[in-house]
């Protein structure tokens, strides 16, 4: 277990980890305010359960798992599913260079929340299938199938060059 932290030390930890966690949260949720709420919640939980952090070097990873787990619990709420439906872009909605940033964000919005989280954790945070499964509290098989489905959907928006045909089982 890591030594107890003073509030000043935890403040330093917040400053160090906030940008990275915020970026992950924004990519997962696609909304600045929600991303801020998610990171705040995850860091507050990390503060409250600091005794579970086995060593200081593991703390950022711990906070990231807490963030993903918190997001997963949000997705499970019926109110979330009702209030944040998947936005289906019309066919051919992406014009010009499909690799431009707005296209990526728009394409992510076409994914179901959990699919989006899986894609971000795997291809932005570079977590393995098992790590994603653990972070989101789902089975490895679900991670693989969700990855496969999400890539298929992204492919229609972004083209094969960005989301090539690949099996979800790869990238362990």
């Amino acid at each position: 277990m890591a030594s107890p932290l003073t509030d000043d030390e935890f403040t330093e930890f917040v400053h160090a980890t906030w940008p990275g966690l915020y970026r992950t949260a924004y990519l997962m949720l696609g909304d600045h305010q929600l991303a801020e709420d998610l990171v705040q919640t995850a860091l507050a939980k990390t503060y409250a359960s600091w005794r579970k952090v086995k060593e200081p070097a593991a703390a950022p990873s711990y906070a990231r798992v807490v963030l993903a787990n918190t997001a997963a619990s949000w997705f499970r709420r019926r109110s979330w599913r009702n209030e944040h439906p998947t936005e289906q872009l019309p066919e051919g909605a992406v014009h010009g260079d499909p690799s431009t940033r707005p296209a990526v964000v728009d394409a992510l919005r076409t994914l179901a929340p959990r699919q989006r989280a899986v894609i971000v954790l795997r291809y932005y945070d570079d977590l393995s299938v098992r790590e994603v499964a653990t972070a989101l509290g789902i089975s490895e098989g679900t991670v693989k199938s969700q990855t496969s489905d999400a890539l298929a959907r992204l492919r229609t928006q972004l083209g094969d060059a960005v989301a090539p045909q690949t099996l979800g089982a790869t990238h362990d």
Partner: protein
Amino acid sequence: MTERLSTLLREEASALDVPPPPAGAVVARGRGLRRRHRIGSAAAGLALVTIVGTGLAIGLGGMGDDGSDAVDPAGPSTGHGAVFTLGTTVFYDGGTKTATIDDQAIKSTYYTSAGLLVRHGDNNYSDGSGPQRFSLVTEDGTVHPVSVVTEDVVPGIDPAQPYLAYAEVVDGEVQVVVHDVSTDQEVARVPVPDAKKWGGWSAPPVALSGDTVYVGTDDVERTVDWRTGEIGTTDAIGPGYPDVSGGRAVQQTGDQMTVVDVATGEVLLTVDAGRTGYLQLSPDGRFASYDVDNKSVDVYDVDAGTKVTLDGQSGDYGWSPDGDLFQVKGRQLITCSTSSGECTTSDVTIPEKGGGVAPDDLRYGNHTYES
């Protein structure tokens, strides 16, 4: 193959305008969460409930939205893949690892965040028939005896937690006991004075979900918050045997079966099941199986509402800790993905006998064997 996607995601992330961290607010909120833990403990003390320690080692997926429970980055330690027993031999991690229980027979096993909890005794019967002893098998295969011995009771386990809950009658009064199997210490004992009648066991059967122990009495289902000692009732599940998995339960209304959130009563899934159909929840409540006929079984993702169809009947399968289904056929282990419906046969060859007085008795992990 997906480097381009990774690159685009990183470009998008690096171009974000990141707001300054509200460190003060985070610390204040964290303090509030931590204080709630302490207040919870103090309230329990005031209620004259015996709470021994408040240690938590909860697994992923069991964290409350308010952060009152914390996660362990190591994740659930029950492992992945099929878990089953043959005689006194425990097979886990998809049958690739084994451990032996030093007793006459295994009665049943339960997934916990601390490892696989095994109930064993002089025979393999679940009801009556002598003492029920417990051992914890951790991921490295070590068998840790647990000091609890029960007789003719139905325990409650939440796969996301390291606790064994059960009821016993002391001087004519029902008491709910919560035991931390990771530390082998009793952490709570709560009297339930109004619990007077229940089924044929020596004490009421219980289920555990989060901080709530559901006590199966005949008149109404009672709830016990074992941290605060608060006792209540719920009509989200009927009286009698409490069947709660991951905070969810199955209800039947006419020809419809529903999966409900026991705490809120919210209906999460509805299946037209006819008069005889039945939904069976996975240990964590994320999936529900339904026998379409005697040849196929539908497996629903409760949250997504999607389903896959597998051959056979639900009774042919066991649930793995990570929510897939498996079955032992002959000497082979077949695992079926609940997300894709794809089934694979492993290379593991299961022996014919596994030791003890019932050496060929095959039991699936977390399966209920009570009558």
